[in-house]
C-alpha cells in the first residue's frame, strides 16, 4: 500500500498507488481520518495511479466525503481518475457525490 500526503495552504493532497480493496481501503480511510481529525476538511485525492477500486474503497471515499462536507466545512474532490473506475462509480449510481477533475493541479487550485 503506497499512500503519500502533502499539505498545502488551502487543502491536503492524498495520493495512492495501486488497488483500493479489502486489504488497502482501511489504510486509506485512516489517512483521510488523520487529516480530518486535524481539523482539515479540504482534500484532493489523486487517483492517477489507482488501478482498481472495490466497494469498500467507494465506501471509504463516501464516508470521508460525509465528514468533509458536514457543516459545509470542506469537500473531498477526486483528480485524474481513470475511465474504467469512473465508469464503475457511475454504474453504481454514486459518481454524483464527487467533483472530479482531470488534473491534480486544477483540483488543488480549485480551493
Amino acid at each position, binding site marked *: 500500500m503506497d499512500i503519500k500526503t502533502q499539505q498545502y495552504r488551502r487543502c491536503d493532497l492524498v495520493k495512492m498507488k495501486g488497488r483500493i480493496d479489502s486489504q488497502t481501503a482501511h489504510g486509506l480511510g485512516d489517512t483521510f481520518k488523520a487529516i480530518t481529525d486535524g481539523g482539515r476538511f479540504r482534500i484532493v485525492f489523486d487517483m492517477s495511479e489507482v488501478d482498481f477500486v472495490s466497494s469498500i474503497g467507494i465506501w471509504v471515499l463516501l464516508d470521508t466525503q460525509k465528514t468533509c462536507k458536514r457543516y459545509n466545512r470542506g469537500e473531498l474532490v477526486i483528480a485524474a481518475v481513470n475511465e474504467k473506475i469512473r465508469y464503475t462509480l457511475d*454504474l453504481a449510481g454514486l459518481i454524483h457525490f464527487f467533483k472530479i477533475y482531470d488534473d491534480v493541479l486544477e483540483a488543488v487550485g480549485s480551493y
Partner: protein
Amino acid sequence: MSTTTVSGRFKSLARISEFVSQFAEEAGLDETATYTVLVAVDEACTNIIEHAYGGEGRGDIQCACDVKEDTLTIILRDRGDPFDPASVPEPDFNVPLQELKLRGVGLVLMQKIMDEIKFTSTPDGENILTMIKRS
C-alpha cells in the same frame, strides 16, 4: 471449464483476478468490461469471505471459468453460510449525502456489471454463484 481453488483470504483475491482476466480476454471483453468483471468477482469473493465464512481463513473459494463464443461464465463455490440476495434491501443512492447508507453496494455492482447472476445452494451445503457476461 478451468478451475482454481484459493483459501478464503483477501490476499487470495489477486490470484482469482489473474485467473479470470485470462478468460475475459478469451471471451473478447474490452478493457472496461474486463475491469468491471474483475470488480464483480472481487465483490463476490469479498462477500464469501465476510458473510459466508464470517471471516478470513475459514474455508476455500473455488473459481471456475468457461468461455463459449462471446460469453464468459464464472462460477464461484464455497461451503459457508448460504446467501439470499433478497435479504439485502435495494439501496437508494438518490438521497442527500448525509443520509446515504452504503450497505449492498457490492451486490448492486455485481448486478449492474454482469448480464446474469444466480445464487444457489446444494443440499450438501455448497453455495454456487454463477455470473455471466457477454461481450
